[in-house]
């Protein structure tokens, strides 16, 4: 699924586009806990769906090779987070949907899980 398609499915707003919206994203992770993101990110170039919008998320995303972060419930990343994401080449998308609906729609759309199980 491309980043463009993800944005469309989530009725999202691209807050920061650091690359190509045609980038293919093979899988998604959804967590608010940074250590779990690091524990389960066995597939690079994943999407992260989270409700946590601080700079820590961007740092952890970079370490875990996350390509894009989706913030749910209209939780906008602050300026510092956006700047850090820009430097690290991570695309940021905000959606008004809940984490449940966001995961639900993307899962129904065929996006795989970052735990590595192929669908």
């Amino acid at each position, binding site marked *: 699924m491309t980043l463009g398609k993800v944005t469309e499915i989530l009725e999202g707003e691209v807050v920061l586009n650091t690359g190509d919206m045609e980038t293919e994203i093979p899988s*998604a*992770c*959804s*967590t*608010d*806990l940074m250590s*779990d993101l690091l524990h*389960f990110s066995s597939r690079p170039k994943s999407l992260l*769906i989270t*409700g*946590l919008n601080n700079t820590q998320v961007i740092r952890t995303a970079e370490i875990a090779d996350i390509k894009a972060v989706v913030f749910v*419930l209209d939780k906008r990343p602050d300026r510092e987070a956006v700047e850090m994401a820009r430097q690290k080449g991570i695309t940021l998308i905000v959606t008004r949907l*809940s*984490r*449940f*609906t966001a*995961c*639900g*729609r*993307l*899962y*129904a759309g065929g996006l795989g*899980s*970052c*735990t590595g*199980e192929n669908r």
Partner: protein
Amino acid sequence: MNIREVVDSLSLDVKTEKGDLGRTVTGCYISDLLSDVMANAKEGEVWITLQTHPNIAAVAALKNLACIIITNKRNPEEETLKKAEDERITVAVSPLSTFEVGGMLYTLLRC
């Protein structure tokens, strides 16, 4: 849809005994941040999280949530289960990721 049907459909492993599996599920909330759940989760919802410590039982009781599903093969602490039993809250675990469990539950609740 009630908790028992959710448990069966998602092949969950129920860790508590006193929770009412016949209780109706009104929806689902996914979050690992307690303050977020306190602010936004609604009564009767299934709560999907990776957190395993005893505070989750307290939060679920306060918000009168239907049950807690812990994902990614994480195991709730002894104290967590004890508190959940006291409050008669069902705690179940799944080996799948939050994304998958949430995704499957979404499809389930929409039908």
